[in-house]
């Protein structure tokens, strides 16, 4: 029983990371029909932004050594700038392009980011020490939980609440939701398309930055492709949850997190190395049962 609770906490924490990353992808998909494969690389940028650019194996902290209240905004700013730049340089000229074109464009943005980091920071993984005090364990009865997991879950809840408030209460939030519902109609009603999209890219950048900070303090290593697996799982999560629905993205994130942790914990030994195969086979199964995802959105239903 203790082991099960322990696994549940692990799953909640991993699911939180996926949910945050999935929200970043879902926000843009809702408005632009853009599946942003570069989102994982925004996460990578957030992590590399912490250190001084050099090809040395030893990473020297730049903004990573600042106190938390300065570090988090600084990391967010770096990723937001990268996200806005990619919108301005790549995605804005492609506003009218088809979904596959946008997707290939986002692959390309991802490759450019990965290789730029490769050239400036070198190819060897770097170790950094961010908030190592979070590794300490907290005891709840017999259950031991690393402080980081509590922080991850807490931060996710706060961010979800803040994002909901932003989307429901502020002018820009309402515009984003209108644009996600029906982009053309929203423009007719006076939503400034590029501004709303810019805000969505910025939000997506902030989410990516938070994910990268949490992820780096967990793993402590930086590589130029570190964001890619996170992006893949998050992307799956948005689809399983219901493409275009933000609630769906969160639900999908937690679903995928639970699947990954529980299969890792309870698959028999001989099959454990095939965990990814089982995770993804389950996802195919979920899609067969609910093709529009767990929480379908009306916006994507084809009207005759």
């Amino acid at each position, binding site marked *: 029983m203790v082991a099960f609770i322990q696994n549940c906490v692990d799953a909640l924490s991993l699911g939180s990371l996926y949910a945050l990353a999935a929200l970043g992808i879902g926000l843009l998909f809702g408005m632009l029909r853009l599946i942003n494969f570069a989102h994982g690389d925004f996460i990578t940028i957030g992590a590399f932004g912490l250190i001084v650019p050099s*090809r040395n194996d030893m990473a020297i902290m730049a903004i990573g050594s600042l106190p938390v209240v300065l570090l988090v905004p600084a990391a967010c700013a770096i990723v937001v700038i990268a996200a806005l730049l990619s919108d301005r340089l790549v995605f804005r000229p492609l506003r009218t392009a088809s979904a596959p*074109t946008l997707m290939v464009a986002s692959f*390309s943005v991802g490759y450019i980011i990965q290789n730029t980091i490769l050239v400036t920071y070198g190819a060897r993984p770097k170790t950094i020490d961010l908030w190592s005090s979070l590794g300490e364990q907290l005891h709840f009865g017999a259950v031991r939980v690393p402080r980081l997991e509590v922080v991850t879950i807490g931060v996710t809840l706060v961010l979800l609440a803040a994002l909901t408030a932003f989307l429901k209460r502020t002018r820009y939030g309402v515009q984003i939701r209108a644009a996600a519902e029906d982009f053309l109609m929203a423009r007719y009603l006076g939503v400034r398309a590029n501004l709303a999209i810019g805000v969505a890219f910025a939000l997506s950048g902030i989410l990516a930055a938070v994910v990268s900070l949490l992820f780096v303090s967990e793993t402590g290593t930086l590589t130029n492709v570190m964001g890619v*697996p996170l992006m*893949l*799982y998050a992307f799956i999560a948005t689809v399983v949850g219901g493409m275009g629905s933000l609630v769906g993205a969160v639900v999908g994130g937690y679903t995928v997190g639970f699947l990954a*942790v529980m299969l890792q914990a309870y698959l028999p030994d001989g099959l454990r190395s095939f965990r*990814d195969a089982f995770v993804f086979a389950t996802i195919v199964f979920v899609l067969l049962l609910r093709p*529009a995802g767990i929480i379908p959105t009306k916006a994507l239903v084809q009207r005759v």
Partner: protein
Amino acid sequence: MTGRLRQWIDAIWLPAFLCAGLAICVGIGQLVESDSISVMLTEMLIRLGVVVGIYIFIGNSGIMSFGQIGFMCIGAYATAWATLDPNWKQIMLQGLPYFLKDATYPFPVPMLMGATLAAAVALVFGFPVMRLSGIAASIATFAFLVVINSVYSNWDSVTAGTSSIVGIPTFINPWGGLAFACVSIVVACVFQRSQIGLMLRASRDDEIAARASAAAVERVRLTAFVTSAFLIGAGGSLYAQFLGILTADTFFMGLTFITLAMLVIGGIGSLTGAVVGTVAVTLIIEILRGLEGGVVVAGARLALPAGVAGNRSRCGHGAYSDIPRPGARWWRGGPSSVSLARA
């Protein structure tokens, strides 16, 4: 009589034109008698055949599939099983069935085995999945790619796991690649002019109208999926017999993205686009690869082998060795490090 002749010419000029164009490329390439050009041409032609195979499904059905490269993996490994030295197989691949473990087969057999196996897997996987449309179908195919990769990189007794399989006899030259590319082009042409192809294209343009006009959308999609898998499996088999060395990660995200980019850049809904896109992207890659070695200006060679930043920090000759090559493993299986770290 002229009407029928006209129809016949209409049907044949496009594949004939494309194949002739490729044949001329190969002919010119062979005149130069350079090994590197010959290797480049072979790889391009095999990829071209594969991209045309991908086009048969994606281009005609309008469903973006990320899974087709998985069939290449299946075809390539089946070929390795059928061609490797039995002594090696008995040590490294003990889980193989006897008809594979104790025997080797001459050329067309391994390719047909690979292609048939790929098509069979496509039939089983496609049967339920072809009911899905749009993004759900894309994700299901993507999940298929990950499942195949995960199985082939972990099933040690049959695929040697993550270690490479070496010693597959290599004999594919540009003419072999050309033959494969031309067969793919002809199959694609025949398919898209057939009744099934037309129904599939109708479902791409408007699924509901196509269903209303009695197109059995699932069935025609499945036909395209299996045909595509057969060709791609054959392509994977040839690729194995061209490289001579196999790892499951060759057939993963990197190759998927580059082949999809080739298709999208050429024009996702057209066969000519698939061919032109492959040639164009290959040329870009080759030109950039040429620049990597430096540019000769007035007899002096200008090169920055470690990049601009590399010269500044004096990384020495080791700086280049750890840069991932195409096909190198750039996605390290899943985020297990997150959950495993404290398990």
